[in-house]
């Protein structure tokens, strides 16, 4: 027995958990009806869930076909509402950043930016104004930097 064998024995006796990219065999059985290749564990389990959901839904729909039309219509409406909710996920980032911009942390930047916007719009509207052309990009940068820096950890807590 060589030295390498000794080390492999030691390592195998430690019982490291083996990371598997493919789904374990037990889960494959549930997903075999579709003859799909074994995928990652999460996906396989999610698919299994979705299949079970669809399996639950189909008998219900069949029974609803037999049932009076009102119930069916009601169910369809519910489903439509759910779909609409799923189709319109709202991004939380703009809201977080706006809250941050209005917070006390960014108050000075917000104050400068608002003042600049007011001044520049007044200058643009005033046709007689001969002074140098001004923009609020710098003030905008300071405000945005403050707001995004404040919102960054909050945003990451929400995202997957």
């Amino acid at each position, binding site marked *: 027995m060589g030295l390498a064998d000794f080390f492999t024995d030691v390592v195998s006796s430690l019982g490291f958990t083996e990371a598997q990219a493919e789904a374990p065999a037990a889960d494959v059985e549930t997903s075999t009806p579709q003859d799909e290749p074994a*995928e990652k564990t999460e996906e396989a389990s999610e698919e299994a869930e979705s299949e079970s959901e669809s399996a639950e839904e189909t008998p219900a729909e069949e029974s609803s076909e037999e049932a009076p039309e009102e119930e069916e219509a009601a169910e369809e409406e519910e489903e439509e509402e759910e779909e609409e909710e799923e189709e319109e996920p709202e991004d939380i980032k703009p809201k977080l950043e706006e809250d941050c911009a209005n917070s006390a942390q960014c108050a000075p930047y917000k104050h400068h930016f608002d003042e600049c916007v007011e001044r520049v719009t007044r200058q643009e509207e005033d046709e007689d104004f001969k002074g140098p052309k001004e923009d609020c*990009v710098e003030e905008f940068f300071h405000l945005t930097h403050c707001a995004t820096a404040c919102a960054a950890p909050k945003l990451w807590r929400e995202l997957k």
Partner: protein
Amino acid sequence: MLARSLLRVPNRAIARQSLGKSTRASSTAAGAESASSPFYLTLTASLATAAAAGSAAWYYHVYGQEAFAMTPAEEGLHPTSYPWVHQRFNKTFDHAALRRGFQVYREVCASCHSLTRVPWRSFVGVMHTVDEMKAMAEENEYDTEPNDQGEIEKRPGKLSDYMPSPYKNDEAARAANGGALPPDLSLIVKGRHGGCDYIFSLLTGYPDEPPAGASVAEGMNFNPYFPGTGIAMGRVLFDGVVEYEDGTPATTSQMAKDVVEFLNWSAEPEMDDRKKMGVKAIALLSGLFAISVWVKRYKWAPIKSRKIVYSPPIGPRR
């Protein structure tokens, strides 16, 4: 010898003292004269000090402050640093996020941006299975080798092929995008200052309207993070543009986060292995260091523990 010479000193020193008295007297006399220093010496010292301070100030006035010709708008807004999980030294890529990010790339970015340095095979085992990637590769056509007649035909893609580009060449890409070349995204995370933060900020940072007074050229969009603030790429990520297969709500920031993580993978596909090797190296080298310390102690033990004793010969007492 030394003691003897010291003992001899007094005799000679006395002789020297008698000789040196006259010289010392003359030097003390000179010191008394200089105590009332002449006016020109004070003036010279003061002028020299003033000239030194003045020239230093003048130099600082002329060369001291760096001249910045760039305006903040031309520099672009520095991206905010986001707490990316995959950038920590002990974390890997989130491969579910990579899969979502690739979906975003395929459905949104790939219409303009190429990913030429990434072959189909590199996705296998990272975010897709072999069969999935084969199917995706076969959707694209590639040139064959010339046949017997010297004609080049088309064949479906294989795993060994590289990702197809949306345009034939850079000129075609420029022509289709109003003169602006969409950069290749294979190494974009490495190729831009700020990396992941920059790209995430760029994708999500399009304001509803540019700030007051900012000039935006025609065909350009205002983005504070792009140097010069005028970017030819418009905002492409809107809520719900992509429908994720794992049911994650496809908000703008979620899609941007996923696609940035995917682009980081395409730039550094070896990252997970690299971190693993780093831990291996730390484990191995620390083990070797520990062994070397023990061996050193072992080897030095007889030297460190020996005792040097001088026992003088015992002679008759005087």
